[in-house]
């Protein structure tokens, strides 16, 4: 990795970040392109990609997902999958239109169908259920027998702060050992740059319902 290569990439992600923060019609596509770039630098298999979908409600609302929709999780370089779903909408803010995230979900899974999932981070801006807006779930068993009789570990919603895509990518690369396309010396500064920008504007929910 050369310094010019890193600098070029950093300039590209800054430009995409500015574009999605600026709002307006191009914001959603800039967000999609940035997401794709971060994944392509790291854990995404070459045949994978992300796409924006809209529906009868029209263009202010989008879903970012796998190439062919919800049934198409992103293939990873370890032969497993990341089910990525981000619900986006454009909202007026002080006479401008801003891109907002209504919900996001990142699920690491061993099969395409998601029956063999491992962990899942969810964020829901306005949750209708009593679970924390931002939480993580793990599919496994506890060593200690401490949960109520009708509760399995995978049903426990551990509250989290807002978790970024960048944090999920690092988790997959560093702790699950998923190979990355580029060297850490390249992708780490890029992820740090975009995560910092995201956290500056990200909605920070409470750890549970107010009432």
């Amino acid at each position, binding site marked *: 990795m050369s310094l010019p290569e890193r600098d070029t990439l950093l300039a590209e992600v800054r430009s995409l970040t500015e574009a999605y923060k600026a709002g307006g019609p191009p914001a*959603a*596509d800039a967000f*999609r392109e940035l997401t794709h770039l971060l994944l392509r630098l790291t854990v995404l298999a070459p045949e994978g990609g992300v*796409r*924006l*979908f*809209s*529906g*009868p*409600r029209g*263009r202010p*609302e*989008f*879903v970012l*997902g796998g190439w062919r*929709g*919800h*049934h198409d999780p992103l293939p990873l370089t370890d032969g497993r999958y990341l*089910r990525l*779903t*981000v*619900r986006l909408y454009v909202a007026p803010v002080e006479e401008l239109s801003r891109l907002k995230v*209504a*919900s996001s*979900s990142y*699920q690491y899974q061993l099969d395409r*169908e*998601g029956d063999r999932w491992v962990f*899942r981070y*969810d964020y*829901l801006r306005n*949750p*209708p*259920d*009593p*679970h924390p807006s931002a*939480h993580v*779930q793990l599919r496994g068993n506890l060593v200690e027998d401490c949960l109520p009789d009708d509760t399995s570990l995978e*049903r426990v*919603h551990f509250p989290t702060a807002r978790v970024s895509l960048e944090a999920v990518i690092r988790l997959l690369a560093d702790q699950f050992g998923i190979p990355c396309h580029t060297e850490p010396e390249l992708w780490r500064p890029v992820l740090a740059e975009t995560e910092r920008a995201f956290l500056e504007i990200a909605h920070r929910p409470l750890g549970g319902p107010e009432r």
Partner: protein
Amino acid sequence: MEENGIVELTRDEIVEMIERGAKHRLNMSARQLVEAYRSGRLENPGAVADLLAFASLLLESDPLFVAA
């Protein structure tokens, strides 16, 4: 249909997608899924977060919601 890199899904495509996913994962219909979610009775919404996101692309007047 794809325009400017954005795939525009029809109502039927979205409902079919939700029906298939809800049946496979929770053994329920799309309508039952939406009803359970909106009433706060869906025990584990994260398991179907993708389906619920695509449901949000439907009009509020869609029969799937009206009936729910």
